């Protein structure tokens, strides 16, 4: 798998969340995504960026444009050094929230992606990776 383009962005404020959406949009256009696929990955990115900010106390995102043979995709990795998630299974359940949100962020982002991976250690931080491939 080749990485055609790679960007790192900090997530420290609401404005950064907007910037994460913009870079995700740009990369998904470069990957040749249709409008619905673009909207899905940008929405997933927005949910995860907001989680990083609200629950992780800020962090960063690594955005990569991928080429695998003839297929193109986008991989986003969100990392924070926040409190971590004690029960990942529970956090993935819809409407479960500890922060007054709707509790759709993680589960929703998972549904909007083709690949989803989460690692979290209490007291160390959380890393969420999603990928979406161009529909053919």
């Amino acid at each position, binding site marked *: 798998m080749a990485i055609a383009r790679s960007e790192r962005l900090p997530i420290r404020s*609401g404005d950064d969340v907007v910037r994460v959406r913009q870079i995700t949009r740009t990369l998904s256009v470069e990957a040749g995504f249709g409008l619905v696929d673009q*909207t*899905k990955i940008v*929405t997933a990115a927005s*949910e995860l960026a907001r989680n990083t900010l609200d629950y992780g106390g800020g962090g960063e995102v690594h955005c990569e444009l991928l080429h695998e043979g003839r297929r193109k995709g986008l991989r986003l990795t969100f990392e924070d050094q926040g409190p971590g998630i004690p029960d990942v299974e529970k956090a993935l359940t819809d409407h479960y929230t500890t922060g007054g949100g709707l509790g759709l962020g993680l589960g*929703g982002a998972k549904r909007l992606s083709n690949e989803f991976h989460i690692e979290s250690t209490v007291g160390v931080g959380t890393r969420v990776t999603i990928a979406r491939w161009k529909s053919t």
Partner: protein
Amino acid sequence: MDRIPILKLGGALIVTIQVDMHDRLAVALEEDLSERIVRTGARGVLIEISALEIVDSFIGRMLDNIAAVSRVLDAEVVVVGMRPAVAITLVELGLTLAGIKTALNVERGMAMIQARLAEEDADGVESAHGHREE
């Protein structure tokens, strides 16, 4: 600070969201809108979102809150102009905006609000409610 303009048309308020929503803007809109509903006695609020490229759970919650606060203040919110890709994504995300009325476009949304106003006029609710124009 940026603010989203609120227009008044008859008994309705109209808001067009043309910018990428962020936290402060969402909070300001909630406050401004509640204040305007009370000041003008508006019975309907039309929120036009055709410029929004995504609606995530943050914006969904904002729309939900605005609708709930407006309802308490006796005004009905109708959200109009959602892009098809946004609607598809919203449902997959798990948000159905169940507490919010939606219409396809401004014309149909205004018709919904006008229908409510006409119904209440016929019931004589309007005279009891009184006119509080700016």
